[in-house]
């Protein structure tokens, strides 16, 4: 490597990005040195992905300067960035599953003359590129038949082969198991020792402390700061990411009642399991209680909810609804049994973007009633009026297409969709993700009201304090397994954090 060890390899000064009137990123600095693994952290909406897109030339920055290896750069396309020496490996491997490993490594720059491909050369070159990372993969295998982890290794090999000097790893570990993560880290450390600079984006704090040297934290599109990993305690890091001090994190809702073991269960799961998603799990979701499901991303939270709601089929175990064995094979079955599930993926699994607020709002109720028993127009409008007011949905009228609303208001419409079905259990998966603070508080207040009204609530959230503030019981998941539960006043963020991180909790906390 020719990069001087003294100066930084990559340096961003005052970089900003606007999309029309929306400022996604403003005045961000980032410094990455050769031979360093640099964590880029922040909550959803912090601006990480925008920053990466600016770095890789997907977006052009609106302001600021970018220096790479001492030169001012202005990448206008991923190809541009790659040529400069900046390569990216995405969580969703951006390679071609239908082609062979060798081809994926060399697509667009196959050895050969005048546009012809020299297949022998392709294979040889591919084998060498993989060997450099100590990987033993059949270069003729179809990429799609490999595990995601191996596909990512191939992506890394491709990036290295492009003479990358800076490797951006965008949530590469999200769908890897423990062994695969270890293998990835082995490769990352090896590259670091060879002088490669890496930007590592992840949601897993353990991994930050396991492998990174420095941390840059973003929040709401602005820079919070750059820190040496070893100097930044875990709790301090969390508070920087969410923008609140540890002290004012704890506050549990004042009116939270103690857990009541005599309250009847709406839904009970016994030994519910699905291979690759969740190990056998027991859950007891009682009337008038908020059960928190705590765990890091990828711990099996959403997977559990999908099983309960009939989206995925379980491999074993049973679900009982109001004490009776229930066969839930689709969301339709679940809705008819009085279950509701507000998915974390608002855009993909929630809204019908081009339909009106009214249509979005009554959809689940109408689905529950069937095609013949139409919700009368007057009733639809009454429901809209009620929920627009009760949930303070900001919209000119109920006929506006839902895509025109802000994320928070969309979320409220989706909550209204489920409340309109008068459910007995409502599963809320990340109900406050990506929405503004005001709407957050309102949604949390709503959770309290639902509990008081006697609903069973299953609350899933990445934000520990959100769980702590609102839950009467918490079930903790780790690595796709139920590892424990916390009840009543014992529910505190540190307690949850310890349970989520497990006994082997590393890092500097």
């Amino acid at each position, binding site marked *: 490597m020719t990069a001087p060890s003294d100066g930084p390899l990559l340096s961003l000064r005052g970089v900003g990005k606007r999309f029309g009137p929306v400022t996604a990123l403003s005045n961000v600095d980032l410094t990455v040195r050769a031979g360093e693994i640099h964590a880029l952290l922040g909550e959803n909406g912090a601006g990480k992905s925008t920053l990466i897109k600016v770095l890789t030339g997907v977006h052009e920055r609106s302001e600021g300067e970018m220096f790479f290896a001492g030169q001012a750069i202005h990448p206008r396309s991923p190809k541009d960035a790659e040529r400069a020496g900046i390569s990216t490996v995405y969580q969703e491997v951006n390679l071609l599953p239908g082609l062979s490993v060798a081809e994926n490594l060399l697509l667009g720059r196959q050895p050969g003359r005048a546009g012809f491909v020299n297949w022998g050369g392709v294979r040889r070159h591919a084998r060498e590129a993989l060997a450099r990372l100590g990987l033993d993969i059949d270069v003729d295998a179809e990429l799609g038949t490999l595990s995601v982890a191996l596909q990512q290794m191939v992506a890394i090999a491709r990036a290295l082969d492009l003479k990358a000097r800076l490797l951006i790893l965008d949530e590469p570990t999200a769908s890897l198991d423990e062994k695969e993560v270890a293998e990835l880290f082995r490769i990352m450390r090896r590259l670091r020792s060879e002088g490669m600079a890496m930007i590592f984006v992840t949601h897993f704090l353990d991994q930050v402390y396991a492998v990174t040297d420095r941390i840059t934290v973003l929040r709401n599109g602005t820079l919070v700061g750059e820190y040496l990993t070893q100097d930044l305690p875990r709790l301090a890091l969390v508070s920087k990411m969410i923008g609140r001090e540890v002290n004012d994190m704890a506050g549990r809702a004042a009116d939270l009642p103690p857990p009541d073991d005599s309250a009847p269960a709406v839904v009970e799961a016994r030994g519910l399991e699905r291979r690759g998603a969740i190990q056998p799990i027991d859950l007891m979701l009682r009337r008038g209680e908020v059960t928190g499901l705590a765990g890091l991303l990828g711990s099996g939270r959403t997977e559990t909810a999908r099983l309960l*709601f009939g989206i995925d089929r379980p491999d074993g175990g049973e679900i009982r609804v109001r004490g009776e064995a229930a066969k839930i094979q689709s*969301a*339709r079955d679940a809705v008819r049994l009085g279950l509701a599930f507000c998915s974390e993926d608002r855009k993909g699994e*929630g809204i*019908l973007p081009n339909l009106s607020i009214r249509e979005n709002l009554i959809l689940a109720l109408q689905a529950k009633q069937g095609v013949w028993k139409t919700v009368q127009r007057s009733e639809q409008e009454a429901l809209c009026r009620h929920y627009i007011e009760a949930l303070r949905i900001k919209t000119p009228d109920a*006929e506006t297409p839902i895509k025109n609303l802000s994320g928070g208001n969309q979320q409220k419409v989706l909550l209204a969709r489920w409340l309109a079905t008068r459910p007995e259990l409502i599963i809320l998966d990340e109900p406050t993700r990506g929405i503004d603070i005001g709407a957050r508080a309102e949604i949390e207040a709503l959770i309290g009201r639902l509990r008081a009204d006697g609903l069973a609530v299953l609350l899933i959230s990445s934000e520990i304090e959100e769980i702590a503030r609102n839950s009467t019981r918490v079930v903790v998941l780790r690595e796709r397994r139920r590892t424990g539960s916390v009840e009543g006043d014992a529910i505190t963020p540190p307690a949850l954090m310890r349970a989520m991180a497990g006994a082997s909790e590393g890092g500097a906390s």
Partner: protein
Amino acid sequence: MSKSKSLSPVWWPLIGLAVLVAVNLALNPAFLNVTVLDGRLYGLPIDILNQGARGLVLALGMTLVIATGGVDLSVGSVMAAAGALAAVLLAEGHGLAVALTAGLGVGLLAGAANGLLVARFGIQPIVATLILMVVGRGAAQLMTNGEVVVIKNDAFAFVGNGTVFGFPFAPLLAIALFVAAQLFLRRTASGLFIEAVGDNETAARFAGLGAARVKGLVYVICGLCAGLAGLMAAANIRAADSYRMGENMELDAIFAVVVGGTALTGGRFLLLGSFIGALLLQTLTTTMYNLGVPPAVAPVPKAVLILVVCLLQSEHARRWAVSLVKGGKK
């Protein structure tokens, strides 16, 4: 949904239709004249309605399929198969009821097969319906042995040629179907379900909708429409020609829906728009005929029309045009 809002996209095909009628009037001032002869209406508008009836029926079914984000390429071939089977049965001496049931049965089966492949096996609609597009015409030719089967049953011919109080029966049937469909789709939740599946299938499923069932059913309805259109086509010329029957009709039906303002990506559908779109296409064909263009050349203006409509609807094309205008000003 207020009336004015739901109507606004329908204005475009309506304007197109008005322009065409105006062009025709300029060429032939008697274009809109309708006369009564032997208690029966005659005139170009009646011709257009009469010849357009089959396209209308197909457009109805196609609208629903396209609203779910799909497409059915097999309707033309299914038409041929349904018409052929009915004609062959009649020729063998079976009655009207048997012929009609068999024709609709062909449509039902074809629709069910398409629906199964798309909704159950998750095969792309273009690919899935391509199979019956190939097989359907082969089956039609097999049934008629490649010959034109003449229909002598007057009761059957009524479906394509009869009149009610002097008004042709076929367009009345098509109009009645549209009215019934509109009522059914908007009075029950079925219209909402179809639009929901087309707009975001996953979200619809998560909301408790039987999305696969909805998708399967629209193909069944579309197949039934194709079967009926096949019967109407055979009845209209009192014969089943397995080569020509329904030829290119899948394209006409898709064009009618697209011109009528329903997006090929699915979601919101406009039944009235498709109705006007189908009439617009038929009027275009008649206009070509009026201009003395041989019928075989008539596809050319259709192609131009569809390209224009596609470009008008394409966001990329609009952005490109805007950038051109802006660039020009600089």
